[in-house]
């Protein structure tokens, strides 16, 4: 019997776009009619291109020569010893522009050029996707406009300047919650205004079909490399841990181990300050299914279907939804999701920096804190952590945070 939607792990492992963009009950394409034909065409062309040898060779060349792939898998001896595990860090912080976001940005910018787009628009939260998109757009020779929440722009000021230096026009979003969610709303509006000439370079595995599949496909390189590297270093891990905001670096890492039944997949969401009733960003752990930004997915919303304000010290995790594929992985029991607090993430960040000489991004520090907790339950285990980005962008928050965390 064939099933019309991807509902099993085997369907997910297949790797192609799921029929109708459905990951079980999640996903889909909930957008204004103006965008429907554009998304149908994007799906068709990106499926074609990602099976085209010439395009794949061009993408591989850019990942090697521009992004700097493969990124290393670093054995973190001191930190691993302190936590009682064999610890390996997948070093996406060493990608050009400082985070995994560039894997997707470069891939989609090449697609945009092939589609004949006249400009690129994108949203950004932490600024990492904005910087990556600005760099990729410059590389392929397309103008780009980045939408960034005014609150995020204040806490990630260096990235704002970097985007401008890379030639992007940055529009600060004063509407809504002035963070990633409002930036996505505004990028959508810019896209609706010029759907034919504009390419929307969405930065995570969220949004309407085909983005959750397309972005995952472009981030799978993380997991593919990590699996090969950790096996070469002595064998498969017991667990792969990554932070989950929208969920692009985690899905990229998890995809490498999806078919390895013995490898636990652990996603770490942002628990915020962690007090009863405090805002957080743990959509998988505490959300309910709804529709936002084009997809049906677990959301942080109130009893009336209004989206609530979220909080995380890590702007890249500060989002009320999550990628639909994660929701299906959760329901299937293939991946598990926990949350850590701002404070736990900061502690892990300081530990990793001092012990390993690696300053992780606040987002990635959530994955480290989750790995530390896992290590407490599994002494002697073998752990791969997705170190999704570097923490240089967070220096202002870190200096400030020292006072009250």
């Amino acid at each position, binding site marked *: 019997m064939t099933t019309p939607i991807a509902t099993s792990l085997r369907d997910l492992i297949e790797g192609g776009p799921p029929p109708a963009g459905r990951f079980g009950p999640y996903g889909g*394409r909930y957008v*204004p*009619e103006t965008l429907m*034909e554009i998304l149908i065409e994007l799906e068709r062309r990106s499926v074609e291109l990602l099976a085209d040898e010439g395009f794949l060779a061009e993408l591989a060349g850019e990942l090697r020569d521009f992004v700097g792939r493969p990124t290393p898998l670093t054995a973190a001896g001191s930190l691993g010893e302190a936590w009682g595990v064999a610890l390996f860090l997948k070093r996406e912080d060493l990608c050009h522009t400082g985070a995994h976001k560039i894997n997707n940005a470069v891939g989609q910018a090449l697609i945009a050029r092939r589609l004949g787009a006249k400009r690129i628009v994108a949203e950004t939260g932490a600024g990492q996707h904005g910087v990556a998109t600005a760099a990729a757009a410059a590389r392929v020779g397309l103008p780009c406009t980045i939408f960034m929440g005014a609150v995020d722009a204040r806490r990630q000021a260096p990235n704002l300047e970097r985007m401008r230096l890379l030639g992007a026009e940055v529009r600060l979003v004063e509407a809504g919650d002035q963070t990633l969610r409002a930036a996505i*709303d505004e990028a959508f509006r810019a896209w609706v205004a010029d759907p034919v000439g504009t390419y929307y370079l969405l930065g995570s595995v969220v949004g309407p079909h085909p983005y959750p599949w397309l972005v995952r496909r472009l981030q799978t390189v993380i997991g593919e490399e990590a699996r090969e590297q950790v096996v070469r270093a002595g064998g498969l891990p017991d667990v792969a841990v990554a932070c989950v905001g929208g969920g692009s670096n985690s899905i990229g890492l998890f995809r490498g181990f999806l078919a390895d039944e013995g490898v636990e997949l652990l996603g770490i969401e942002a628990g915020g300050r962690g007090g009863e009733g405090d805002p957080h960003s743990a959509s998988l752990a505490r959300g309910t299914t*709804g529709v936002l*930004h084009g997809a049906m997915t677990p959301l942080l919303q109130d009893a*009336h279907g209004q989206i609530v304000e979220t909080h995380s010290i890590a702007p890249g995790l500060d989002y009320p939804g999550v990628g639909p594929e994660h929701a299906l992985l959760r329901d299937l029991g293939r991946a598990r999701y926990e949350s850590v607090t701002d404070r736990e993430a900061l502690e892990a960040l300081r530990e990793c920096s001092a012990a390993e000489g690696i300053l992780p991004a606040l987002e990635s520090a959530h994955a480290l804190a989750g790995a530390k907790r896992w290590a407490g339950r599994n002494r002697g285990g073998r752990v791969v952590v997705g170190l999704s980005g570097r923490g240089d962008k967070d220096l202002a928050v870190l200096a400030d945070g020292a006072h009250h965390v």
Partner: protein
Amino acid sequence: MSEGSGAAAITAAIEASAGPALCAYVTAGFPSRQAFPEILRSVAAAADLVEVGVPFTDPMADGLTIQASNRAALSAGVTLEWIFDLLEAEHRHLEAPLLLMGYYNPFLIHGLERLASSLARSGVAGLIVPDLPLEESEPIREALAPGSRALVQMVAPTTPPPRLQRLTAASAGFVYAVTTTGVTGQVDLDPGDLDHLARVKRAARLPVLAGFGIRSRRQVAAVARLVDGVVVGSALIEVIEGGEDPGEFLRGLRNGEVPA
């Protein structure tokens, strides 16, 4: 609206209009919950159809005016329940059929299984859901019980011909032709937009109303040559915000002299 088909009542109201049909959009509970019933009555007396907007935190197809009215309504505590209760009390006194216009999530969270009865008790003839394309609309269509409440389909300038046929055939009540690419409230329609409206009219069996960016008597006159009427939203919200009489504004759009 009482018993019978919401779709038929909507279509009949458009066809009964002497000039170009006028569908007025008002955000529920704007400018305040107290002032809204009076605005609703005034608008229903001047227009052929009334779209009551269900506010949402993330209205991605809307421009600044309707974003702001959504925020104001949400701050004032407007919920879908409040809207159903208000319309239950008001609808028998209103002179035009009512539609709800809102993003999918609040309807979904209300519960599709009780949506039909909520719409019935509040006298709502149909729904417009801007982020629900035909492909995702099956659950709500089933919930609305065919023939009872209308789901109005939107078509856009980017909709290709075969899809246009499918959408116009699937619509109920009328076909909502989005005038131009962009969000609500933008101004300036160009000749290409008008060609698109003519295409929609040729494809549609139902009446066609054009919306997005309609704000002047001159535009209404130009658009009415091609389709059956217009939807007015952002411009009306601005009138309400400015404390002017929304009924007078609507009558002026339709009946006034077209300036040279």
